[in-house]
């Protein structure tokens, strides 16, 4: 019984992590750049949901979700314009530092605006729980899983079944060739950042109800996205989702049996062990290195 309960919690957490990791991989594939601000974008999405709830009292999360995602998409475009596009032809370390700088601004901006205390956003469809086969399932957990699944499916459909998705993939594979074929590469990159930030915003809203959001949550989240992507194979979209589910399951089980601190420490140590043994990730590298 407890195991089933833990599974539901783990899948819900993993679904939210998967959104974080997906946004990270989308930008990674499109630009070859690691977006260190991804965790802070999730945090920003959480606080945006909290702030919007102040303007629209009693609005459930599913009403706020499209608003948060739209605003975060704009923020994503701003990030690409200030922190990626001016540095695209320089060594990759420049983008690492510029996105770290964006993270610093977001994190401390949130501290100044909202204070350092944890905040919670509204649940998607109100609180409460229902019972299936004697199992107490929080409505929020099911709603989080459904929403994340919907967003992941939408993202998959966009990339595989639309002209825009083909252009985005072409840009990711070979920007030079894509440009030669008449694809507006710069807009595609900005759009990818917008998508990545929108997914981060959604994850922020979903996570901040059960787990709260603090301004300093970003570095923990980017590490988890990074671990998920490393486990799932650098650059692989399905791998990112699987990796996110795995680390969430690990976290939920170890937190339950030992403590949250032990879970986090074990996760990082496991990562170091993976890197020591298989630097290319557990399932190999999906994207070729662009150094």
């Amino acid at each position: 019984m407890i195991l089933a309960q833990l599974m539901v919690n783990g899948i819900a957490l993993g679904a939210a992590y998967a959104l974080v990791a997906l946004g990270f991989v989308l930008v990674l594939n499109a630009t070859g750049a690691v977006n260190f601000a991804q965790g802070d974008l999730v945090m920003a999405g959480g606080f945006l949901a909290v702030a919007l709830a102040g303007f629209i009292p009693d609005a459930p999360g599913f009403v706020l979700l499209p608003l948060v995602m739209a605003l975060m998409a704009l923020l994503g475009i701003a990030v690409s314009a200030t922190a990626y596009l001016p540095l695209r032809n320089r060594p990759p370390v420049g983008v690492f530092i510029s996105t770290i700088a964006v993270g610093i601004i977001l994190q401390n901006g949130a501290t100044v605006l909202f204070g350092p205390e944890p905040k919670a956003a509204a649940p998607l469809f109100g609180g409460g729980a229902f019972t299936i086969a004697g199992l107490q399932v929080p409505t929020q957990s099911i709603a989080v899983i459904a929403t994340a699944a919907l967003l992941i499916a939408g993202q998959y459909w966009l990339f595989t079944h639309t002209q825009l998705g083909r252009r985005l993939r072409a840009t990711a594979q070979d920007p030079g060739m894509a440009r030669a074929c008449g694809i507006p590469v710069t807009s595609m990159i900005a759009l990818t950042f917008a998508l990545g930030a929108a997914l981060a915003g959604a994850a922020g809203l979903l996570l901040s109800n059960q787990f709260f959001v603090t301004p300093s949550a970003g570095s923990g989240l980017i590490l988890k996205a990074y671990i998920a992507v490393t486990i799932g194979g650098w650059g692989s979209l399905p791998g990112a989702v699987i990796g996110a589910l795995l680390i969430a399951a690990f976290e939920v089980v170890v937190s339950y049996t030992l403590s949250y601190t032990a879970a986090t420490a074990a996760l990082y140590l496991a990562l170091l062990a993976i890197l020591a043994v298989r630097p290319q990730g557990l399932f190999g590298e999906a994207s070729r290195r662009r150094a």
Partner: protein
Amino acid sequence: MPEALTRGLNPLLILAALALAAYALFGAGPYGLRVLTVAGVYAIAVIGYQAIFGQAGALSLAQGTFFGIGAYVTGILGSTSGFGFAVTFPLSILAPTLLALLIAVPVLRLESHYFALATLGIGQVVLLAAVEWQSLTGGANGIAGVPGIDLFGWRVGRGLPLALFVWTLVALGALLAWLLGHGRRGAAFPIMRETPVAARTLGIDIDRLRLEAFAVSAAYGGAAGALTAHTQRVVSPEVLEFPVMVTILTVAVIGGQGRIAGAVVGAVLLIHLPEWFRGLENGYLILYGAALLATIVAAPWGIVGSLERLRARLIPERPPAAPAASAPPARPTSKPSLPASSAPVLYVDGFGKRFGGVQAVSDVSLRLDRGRILGVIGPNGSGKTTLINLITGLEKADAGKLYVSDADITGEPPHRRALAGIARSFQTAALPSDSTVLEAVTAARIAIDSDIATARSHAMHFIVQAGIADLVHTRCGALPPGPRRAVELARALARQPLAMLLDEPAAGLTEDEQASLARRLRAAADDGIAIMIVEHNMPFLLPLADRILCLDEGRAIAEGTPGSIRRDPAVIAAYLG
């Protein structure tokens, strides 16, 4: 005078240093002195950080962690054991250095982004440990009652004495960093930072350089942490949190990456910044973030780099005189008693390599002989470049053996193979764009010559020989394709190799340049070098080569003289036809 030293000695910087000293001695109140002391502490942390981040070019996010560990060691020992500074300070340096050496094994060979995130992860583990291990660290409350600095009975008082003590350590640390980072090691850093793959094939052991730089950064981080514990008199988990790392990174970038003076200037400026913008309270980190972003986008060379550029524009500096060329002593060829033709210089026995499902190279054997040129041809994707990568060790062969002068070097890493006598060029010339031609060719000598001046003068010999002496102070990034090739060839020849492997050396050259390249290669062969040339340009290759090896889909399909290869039906079907 060594340029690394003069580069930091800008008249403006000297004036600023004097003004700062006058302020400390006569103008600053107790609070001002305290801020100056903190700036000195950060200067030490960043001088160390410049080694791994600025010079080795690896974005470590563990410097704040090393700083925090140094602080905790001093805090724990100082408050409980009663040991003085003479014991706690060295231990505070030792502990993070040992940690750096320990974690270096899994993380140092990782690529840039993996390295950055792995070091961030290590920081999180240490922070968790500091909060949870309450019996040792005092948990979230930390450790109070850390004593001041007590050195063999001499107590360093608060205020001016402490500020002077810290800044004396800054000066010593800067001097030591300069001693460590100039000369041959200093010449290796730009090559290893910008073109790490090429650096390995020049005989530079970049893994070891990175390890040393990481250990040095940890030692400085620990020293700074110890001083912060003595300054604050308390140690709490704050010293391990991300804002410390943010400050260190921001100071390094804004001051000027890789520059010792940049660390000091950046620290003084950024530690004072929050004092000048008091209204911001804790929002000063937003300012750091914005300044970091603006700097990395608009002026990635930082303040000290900007001053250098400004000076270069105001007082156009004549380039330093090129060192006098001196011919290096001839490389002792192994086993000179043997007749030149009997043993191959380099022998590949059955190399094989798979990438995923593709057999890139399959059972290829070849020999390179003294004074002979082997041409390697084949369609795109037939495994030619992979073959060079396998011989130079950049890729690991799944099967086969490699011998140089009869010695089996199959298991050796790239830099050892280079030292065994293998040199190479790259398909797209891999020159560090910010280095001058002289610096780029000198890099080929630093693993051979005993000091940098000799390396430079030997490099000059090969530059003159290549006929590019007028380009000696040109930045490699500004070179047109022809001269780029010439520089790369000069760099390969400067290694005085036994065997030289060239990847499409004639690509993009004019006919005149091709003719001159062919003459130089023939002359190099006549000097006794065994040469292998991968090339698509048959009018260039066929008259030049003594023998030709043709690859197709990773297999050797024909080998023979250029004349026989031209008539070989398999070669015509696969490639020439």
